[in-house]
């Protein structure tokens, strides 16, 4: 897919989204929201897909869970991929299942040898079952769970080397984690395995009601901040232009407002794309 800018699709934006004339516009949805048997939700996605490229972003595979990914869930995901033929498929480097219980959250883990093996096994299973390469997203972290044997970027590089998966880099997640865990976001960007990156995410965050701006929350309910835009520019410089998504899940503004953020991303991508095409 061309390195253009897309927005997260919200059903309330359906008519404007389908009618938008914006060049290079594409849409991303959470795969789990469309794992239903039928009805208007899937019908809407059919229309959207006929108009624009689509990206499926999973939140439920629990790739960093010690258990193997749920076969039934993989089968549901595969049916969506076969039906909608998405340009991009991604998941999170996190876990959300423990035994029979699922958590609507993206939980952290210690970056140990054992977890590296487990995660690579799970990504192999997922890529096999889904019949394609997937990309994994760098997590937002709120605390250091300790016990790490790798830095996050080295851990990501090792996963990519062993599984051949791609990397989705979320600039807001870098900013949130760097602030909360007090590491240098620029160093993080400089040590990313650039050639594996398939997509960028941009989103807003909020500050903790008690701890203020020493604890940032990856809430996707605010406009993208200047600090995150600056990291995005740095990512483009270091990695090159990649399809870039404006993510918004709460306090969803009118479609036009999201499209303004999208235009800002597109204007940063364009010169890098020209440089690459030259």
């Amino acid at each position, binding site marked *: 897919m061309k390195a253009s800018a897309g927005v997260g699709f919200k059903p309330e934006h359906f008519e404007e989204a389908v009618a938008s004339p914006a060049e290079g516009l594409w849409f991303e949805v959470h795969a789990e929201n469309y794992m239903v*048997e039928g009805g208007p939700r899937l019908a809407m996605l059919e229309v959207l897909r006929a108009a624009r490229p689509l990206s499926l972003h999973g939140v439920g595979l629990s790739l960093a869970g010690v258990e193997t990914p749920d076969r039934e*869930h993989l089968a549901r995901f595969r049916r969506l991929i076969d039906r909608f033929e998405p340009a991009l498929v991604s998941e999170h480097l996190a876990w959300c299942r423990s035994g029979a*219980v699922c958590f609507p959250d993206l939980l952290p883990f210690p970056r140990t040898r054992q977890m590296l093996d487990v995660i690579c096994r799970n990504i192999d299973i997922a890529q096999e079952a889904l019949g394609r390469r997937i990309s994994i997203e760098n997590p937002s972290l709120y605390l250091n769970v300790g016990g790490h044997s790798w830095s996050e970027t080295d851990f990501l590089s090792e996963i990519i080397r062993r599984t051949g998966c791609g990397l989705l880099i979320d600039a807001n997640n870098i900013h949130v984690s760097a602030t909360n865990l007090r590491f240098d976001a620029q160093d993080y960007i400089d040590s990313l395995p650039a050639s594996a990156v398939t997509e960028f995410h941009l989103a807003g965050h909020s500050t903790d009601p008690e701890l203020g701006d020493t604890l940032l929350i990856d809430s996707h309910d605010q406009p993208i901040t200047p600090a995150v835009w600056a990291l995005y520019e740095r990512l483009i410089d270091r990695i090159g232009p990649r399809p870039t998504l404006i993510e918004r899940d709460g306090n969803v503004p009118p479609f036009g407002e999201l499209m303004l953020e999208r235009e800002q991303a597109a204007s940063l991508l364009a010169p890098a794309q020209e440089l690459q095409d030259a």
Partner: protein
Amino acid sequence: MPDGAEFQRSFAHAVSARRPPKGMPPAFAVYRNTWLKGLLDALDASFPTVAMILGPETFKAVAIEFARDHRPDTPVLALYGGEFPDFLAVHRAALDIPYLRDVAALDRLWTECFLAPDAPALRPQDYGSLRPAEMFGLRPRLHPAARIGWFETPAVTIWQAHRAEGEFEEIEPEWRAERALVSRRGAAVTVTLLDEAAYTILIEIRNGRTLGSAIATAAEAHPGSDLAGGVSTIIASGALTGAGKEQE
């Protein structure tokens, strides 16, 4: 080096325990809040009429109690909360609201209908050219998205009043049992108040009877009912599919 399985078991417990374990850093609250918010958002999306009746504060308090005891076993949360109506039935918040469980059940039927499989609905023109004998021989099935509900309370009237467009108007429904058909036409889910005869016809069709036999049973049980009106309401609602003929 921490064992991954042991780490995840204890982390999962700490995230969802009723009280946060002692000694956790303040940032750990973010995981506890995010977990709970995901479940509350799912309940809020699935039970909007219950939320309107209880108000946001009470709804949130009740939903938190429910979520702590009903953890999802799938990451697909669209159908989370199937036990919520029965949970409400015995909850203190429902003490003064005897119709709350039934309204929740209707919200649930709405969600089931919205997400159910697609199938071509039987349309009036599919039977309009048939002779009466042929029409009565039809053996339609309930559309996979259609749901039928019977309630001890006037929950259908109450539900409709809350979900109508425009300003909410105070209503004083007659206190009696009500029946509903929840069905899908195109992208729209509709909740239709049924009389006893139309309800009987739908139950008989669900049991595999022909249209003629279903109508005859309804006529016998509810003499004087508007059977033709009931049948046309049912068909216009998109509640039927796949009309095989009796002789086939």
